[in-house]
């Protein structure tokens, strides 16, 4: 029984590992932490394998486990622990030369874990508000408010909130005005 269970589990794990790592990477914004998270989730999955394998949608079940593990570990201070590694930092993203993309990436990484998780499950996993609430174990209202807060934080970080936009526009006008004055002088 154990060897069959282990074989089934190992098959599932090898098939789903890449997608779980991708999701974990988006949550953690760091491959090393992502691997820690995936490993912790898979160990739990092994313990609960009978139930998970019997679920209507095992993939959704595991995805929920991973997101909840991410949030619980963050609450437990896991993210604050220093991890020593002999590996070099990841290679630069070939697309990362776009300033806007880099800024957005940094801004996403700076979000509180729960806000980042909400964005990932909504805009990467494509879950609607109700589905996201179920997965995160909170109310749809909380998902909406966390999404709004996260987007607001991103807009501010990118200088796109209404106040900041206004300030930028005033600045641009002032520079244009100075240019005209200088040109007239």
């Amino acid at each position: 029984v154990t060897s069959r269970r282990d074989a089934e589990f190992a098959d599932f794990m090898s098939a789903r590992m890449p997608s779980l790592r991708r999701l974990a990477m988006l949550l953690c914004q760091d491959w090393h932490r992502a691997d820690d998270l995936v490993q912790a989730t898979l160990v739990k999955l092994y313990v609960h394998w009978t139930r998970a394998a019997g679920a209507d949608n095992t993939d959704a079940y595991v995805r929920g486990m991973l997101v909840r593990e991410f949030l619980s570990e963050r609450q437990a201070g896991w993210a604050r622990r220093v991890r020593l590694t002999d590996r070099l930092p990841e290679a630069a993203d070939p697309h990362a030369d776009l300033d806007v993309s880099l800024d957005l990436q940094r801004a996403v990484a700076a979000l509180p874990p729960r806000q980042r998780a909400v964005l990932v499950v909504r805009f990467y996993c494509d879950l609607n508000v109700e589905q996201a609430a179920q997965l995160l174990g909170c109310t749809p209202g909380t998902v909406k408010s966390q999404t709004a807060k996260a987007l607001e934080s991103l807009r501010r970080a990118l200088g796109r909130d209404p106040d900041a936009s206004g300030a930028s526009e005033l600045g641009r006008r002032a520079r244009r005005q100075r240019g005209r004055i200088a040109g007239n002088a």
Partner: protein
Amino acid sequence: MLETELRELFERQASGHQPAAAITSQQVIRQGRSRLRISRATAVAAPMLAAAVVAAVVVATTLSGAEPGSRPPHHRSAASAVAAAPKYFDPLRPYPAFGWLPGTHVISGQTGTTTQILNAGQPDWMLTVHAGGQCSAAGRILRCNGERGQFVLMTQLPDIDGLPAYWTVVGVQKILVFEYARDGWAELTFSDLAEAVRVAGHISFGSSAAPPVSPVQLTGLPGWRLRYESFLPMPDGTLAAGIFGFASGAAVDAPGSGNPANYPVLFVSKAALGGTCSFTAGQSSNGLIAGYSVTITRVPAGGEPAVQELCAADANGLRIDIFVNGNNPAIDVTQVFAHLRLLGPDPAQWTTKPVG
């Protein structure tokens, strides 16, 4: 639009270069097995373990799908439903009992002072009952001590026996959440809501059910006692305990705990013909205790807490596995085994008094 940019960013990050994984299935399975040993006696692993022990112990089923003629005498009534839920359950007796289930099911379960579980299927019909005060409702959120943590009470249902009921979804699991007595909540996993409401309406609560019978007794260890963790039905309908938690002093049935770290958990089942114990070179040793062959394995603390394990493949017709997980064991596994009175494989010889 920021949302579109986010989708693009996530897609780009997800489809970018993925470094080699530092995770192997062997690693995960090894850690998982270790965790499984610990959590066997706790809620989530119970169905799987029960299935394994059922194969050894159970030869018949306990509940039929027949519609009940009347509710059991100790079923909660409208009058009793408003009574407060007990703050603690008797860990030697199952508190809830199914009165009706669709189809025929083998029931297994777990007792504990703050949470009790009945399993009648996989994955449906797992009933978790929380003692009074273990859950607190705030708006649409119900927080409970235990495995699931909290529920979003998504859809309110008609009251069950005059008390509120809801259904919700956790992951992919549909759950009926209902108050069975004042300040006491229960969870029932299901597939069909109408059936679930009917099942919940026929659950009885109270300690009038017969206690499980035990194939072992604990003798000569003052202050220590056995508490049932998991039990299974016998052909005559009685419940047989297959897993025990040991407790002593202040650690007895610590609220919310499955089994405290450093305290033993004992697994008992009928010995299988030709059954063996696992032996790990460098960690295991064979020996004789009270005339029985045993294998003792001591795994030192590393990334995980230390583990002591004693296995007797056939001790008076019983298979015994004792685990102590923790770096400061309250008792040695050999001492536990030496104080067990083994009552043999015949259920007729078993006792309702696990402590001698």
